[in-house]
Structures are given as C-alpha cells and as structure tokens.
C-alpha cells in the first residue's frame, strides 16, 4: 500500500497540528479523539479524511441512549418471538436475528475504512469503557452464534467529543488526541475562501470583523462558530448585501444584517439588541 498522507482537502483547511495527529493515528492504526467547540468541523474531519484517502466511511452517531453493544451487533429477540408465534421458518436459525452494528460493518469492509464515532460524550459514562477491547484488539465475540468477528483491515477510527462528560483515562490512553482551536482570522479567511472562492475582499474583511466582534460579546450562551459564519456569508451573498452595511462605525446600523444566522438563541438575540441599544444611547449622549 502506498504511503498516503492527509493534508486537508480542497474543501477543508487542516492546520499543521491537525495533520500531524491524523497521520500519526493513521500510521499507527490507533483511534483519534477530536475535541473542540461545536461547529469547528469535528464531524466534517472524518468525512474529509475518508475522501482524501479514498476510503469508505461508516458513521455511528451516538445518542444519550446508545449502548456500546449496539455498535457491535444486536440480537432482535422481539422479532424472533413474533416469528415464532406466526410460525415462520426463519425462527430456527438464530443468525437471522443478529443485526450488525456500525463497528461490525466497518470490520467487515474489504478495504481499510474510516469509522466515525460521533459525539461519544453524549452516551452514558461507561460507554467508552465498554469499547476498550474492541478498539484495542479490533475484534469481538458474538455469543449467540459463537463467532469471533475480527477486523479484516484495522479501520481508521475518528471519535468526536463536545466535552459534555469526562472520558475515562483508560480510554484516553488508547487514542491520539487533538483539540481543534477556534480558527484565528487568517485561518478563517482561508476556510471562507475554500467555501466561497472569489468572495470580494471587502466583504470578506467586513464580515470577519463583524463576526469576531460578535464572538467577543460577553455572556452569549452559544458563540457563533465556523459553520454559522459560512451560513451567514451564504445569506449575505444571496441577499447581495454590500460590505459597507457591515461596518460597525455606522451607528444607525450597528446590528449586522441577517444576524439570525449567527445567533441561535432568543436570550442571546435579546442580550445583543440590548447591548446595541445601550451602545447607541451612549454615543448620542
């Protein structure tokens, strides 16, 4: 297999440290854990890695009720019970009722796949511990059919976390770790550029200024993130808003237009309007 390195893609700007972490994880076939503010492209990373290295992608999205076992397989006892009552012949083979989970699917892949375990912190505290053996040895045992499932190719595992719960040490020790920092203005300009090539310089500068000013407002429940900035610029373009309208010096229009795309929370919008109001009053005095 030719040595492949992840260097970002045409639609994804990867910083040096991110590339290093991903390449180390790919080379050593260890999971990589990605943390960072919501909307900084954690989930996107797995898709981009799969696209860049040309691998199939399996996505496992975790919810608060997800159990580790569901990623391996599930035994659908209820279906079997129903079939037995209806006299279906399938009922005699238990293997008919073993439903494969995402990890099994990834293990069975013909080429080395990318497996995304998204928002692992949403699940129960014990969840990561239940997956230690599977992630380490890349194999698990199906008790119902007495079968050992082993990965044909160790998948590239990307795990994301929003830091809602602390992850156990034993789990962390097995992963590479990367924290996606909120991009600085230069990186952000590059990111915007790959999404909106040929965006007018003036609009880019003014929108970024307005965006970072808004992020600096203290007390926001949810600070706007990269994905919200991109949505907002899309709207600005669609509405054909001139860059001058975004300038803060213009006190009559200090609220950036279409700010509903950036602030997703009633209280935040309220707080922001209040601040603008106070600001205007202090200027007129």
């Amino acid at each position: 297999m030719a040595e492949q390195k992840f260097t970002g893609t045409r639609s994804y700007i990867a910083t040096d440290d991110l590339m290093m972490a991903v390449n180390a994880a790919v080379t050593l076939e260890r999971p990589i854990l990605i943390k960072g503010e919501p909307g900084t492209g954690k989930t996107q990373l797995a898709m981009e890695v799969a696209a860049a290295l040309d691998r199939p992608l399996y996505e496992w999205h975790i919810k608060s009720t997800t159990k580790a076992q569901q990623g391996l397989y599930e035994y659908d006892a209820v279906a079997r019970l129903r079939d037995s009552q209806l006299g279906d012949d399938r009922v005699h083979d238990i293997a008919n009722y073993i439903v494969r989970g995402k990890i099994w699917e990834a293990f069975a892949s013909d080429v080395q796949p990318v497996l995304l375990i998204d928002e692992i912190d949403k699940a129960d505290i014990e969840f990561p511990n239940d997956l230690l053996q599977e992630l380490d040895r890349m194999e698990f045992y199906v008790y119902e059919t007495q079968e050992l499932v082993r990965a044909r190719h160790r998948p590239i595992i990307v795990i994301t976390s929003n830091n809602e719960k602390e992850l156990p040490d034993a789990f962390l020790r097995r992963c590479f770790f990367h924290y996606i920092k909120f991009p600085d203005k230069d990186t952000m300009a590059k990111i915007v550029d790959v999404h909106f090539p040929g965006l007018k310089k003036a609009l880019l500068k003014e929108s970024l200024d307005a965006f970072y000013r808004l992020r600096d407002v203290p007390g926001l429940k949810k600070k706007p993130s990269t994905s919200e900035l991109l949505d907002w610029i899309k709207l600005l373009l669609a509405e054909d808003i001139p860059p001058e309208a975004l300038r803060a010096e213009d006190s009559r229009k200090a609220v950036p237009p279409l700010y509903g795309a950036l602030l997703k929370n009633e209280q935040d919008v309220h707080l922001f309007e209040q601040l603008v109001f106070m600001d205007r009053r202090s200027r007129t005095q």
Partner: protein
Amino acid sequence: MLNSFFYLLREGGIRPSLSEWLTLLAALKSGVAGHSVDDFYYLARSALVKDETLFDRYDRIFAAYFRGADDAFRDLVRELPADWLERQAELELSDEERAQIEALGGFEKLMEALRERLEEQKDRHEGGSRWIGTAGTSPFGAYGYNPEGVRIGQAGSRHRSAVKVWDRREFRNLDDTVELGTRNIKLALRKLRKFAREGAADQLDLDDTIDKTARNAGLLDIRMVPERHNAVKVLLCLDVGGSMDDHVRVCEEMFSAARSEFKHLEYYYFHNFVYESLWKDNRRRHAERVPTNEITHKYGADYKLIFVGDATMSPYEIVYPGGSVEHWNEEAGAVWIQRLLATYPKAIWLNPEPRERWNFTPSIKLTRELMDDRMFPLTVSGLDEAIRALH
C-alpha cells in the same frame, strides 16, 4: 535520551502513561514526524496530552526541556516569581516594637501606596521597612507585623488582622476526587433527585405489555417506555480561602458527592461573600472571572442554588459597598445575594461552622436573615433538612 522528557512531563503533572510513551516512540520510529521540532511538538502533544486544559502546561515544560533548562519548569505553577516572596526568615517582634509601628494613615492611602510601590519595585526584597517582600515591617508583604499591613504571598494567616488580603497565592481548586466519607453525603443528596422519563423509549414496560398482549388475543404486543433520568439542576457556589481553610476537607467531600450525583451541576467559587463576579478556576481567579449577571442570565430559574460557606467575616463585607477584602465592590454583597435569590427562588446556604456558634457571629446572623433563615449546617443531617427546604 528522550526519557528525561517523559519524567519531566510526569513531574510537571501531565502524567502520561508508559503505553502512551511507547506509542509516541513507535510513531517516531515509523517516521510520521519529519525532522523538525515543530513536528515533534505536535506529535508528542497528540500522543501524550489528552486534555486541552493541560496544553499550556505542556507548552511550558516543552519549552523548558528543549531550552536545556530542566529546572525552569518548577516555577510553572506560580504567577509571581516564587523566590521574590518566599519566606526566608521570620521576623519576631517584641510588644514594644509592635507598639512602635504606627499605622500609616487611612485605608485608601495604604492601597494607593501599595500600588505605587509595586510599580517602583522590580526586585525581590526581604527585611527592611519600605520595600515589599517578606519578614519586614513595611506595611506590605507577609510574615511580618504591621497592624494595618497588607498581606502578599503568605500561605496561611498568621495574625489574621491584615486590613486587606491582596494575596496572589494559589487557591487550590477543590479536589473532587475525595471518595472517603462521601457516601453518606451522596445518599443525602440523592433525596434531591427528581426523576423524569425522557429520551427514547428503550425499556420494556412489563405491565403494559402483558395488558396489551391479553387484549390482543394472546399475540405479543410489546410496549416500551423511556428510561428515567435525574432531572434536577444545581448551581453550586463555594467559598474558598481565608477562614474556609479550616473546612476544606468537608467541602471537598460535599463537592465530590455533588459532582457524581447531578448531571446538571454548575459550580462557581467566591471569597467570603458573593459580589459582581465569581470564578470557576482558583488558579486563574484574578484573570478569569464571570460576572454574576452573566450567570443569572445563563442558568434558568429552574436551577437550585446552593451556597457553601462559613459566612464568617466582617459584617462590612456584606452590607457596605467597598467592603470586600479583595477588591473594591461598587455594590454591597447583600444587594448581589438578593439579586441571586430573586432569580433562584429555590436556594439554601450550607454552613460548615457548627450551628451552636451561629448566634455569636454577626455576619452569620446577617446572612441567615438575607437567606430567609434557609441556612443549614454542613452535616449529613443538616443536608437532609436543606434538601427538604429545596423541594
């Protein structure tokens, strides 16, 4: 060769494990990293440091190691140069000498003078009677004696008479890993649980299944219900430092228990009394403060507010603007606590001081009045009472 870097990291409090270290070596061997220090820096961070809050510490250790100054990292934790204020000698003064030291005018003048002198003075200082340092008779510094002195960098109160604590010593964050003795507290806190079924239906409802199956002429009809979760939300405000030093143990127990019991637990620290801002990290409490207004804005009225503090202080700290021992507060603590109570009607104060002493401390009486008598001792039985008051 790199092994000493590993031990330096462990000593510096990052504690990578042996398996992580071996992973890093394997990665180096496989040639993932090029031959630049930057590559190594990123690779080692991603392999060894699994918590972004430790990145800063890692940076400093890394810098210290690769500058070849192995011991520079020992000063990591301190903000002020440690030896500048380190206690070298203690000054023992006789009573006459103490009497000779006159107070240097009013309070305001004292603070003004401190600010000026901090600016003038650049080096470490010890003894003498003017510069700020240790074991002297200047009104600024520690381990010395001046009846109106300002304390800087002293690990425990010696005379407890300093007018103002301008103390940048490290207030340790409460350790929530204390397990011993937390079980009783956990059991008490458990009474605060309020269960609600939420989320996906993933549990078999046996009674309903039997009922529906019978109605379905014996054909199975499976019924599911969502799991039950603890839906209680708690906002915990903890007093640290000063007179609370005596109660650290019981507060850590309380904090540990609360951390593991509640899914929605937010905590903030304060010193003696709540004012216009609180903080989350005692190591950076001077740099990172959260305005109290922001807290009431962020957490809804469904949160239950729990103060933990001994409420033992000078009554001025509660009722007068500018009474705080740490800073100049524009509005009195009483105003701030009333704002908090207006936002969170379900609130209690837990006091580690024994109940018998409450009546002899004016500030405790004041606080009790402000709390509408909802103050309870920080004992298991006191917690029981407190939880009932919260319902």
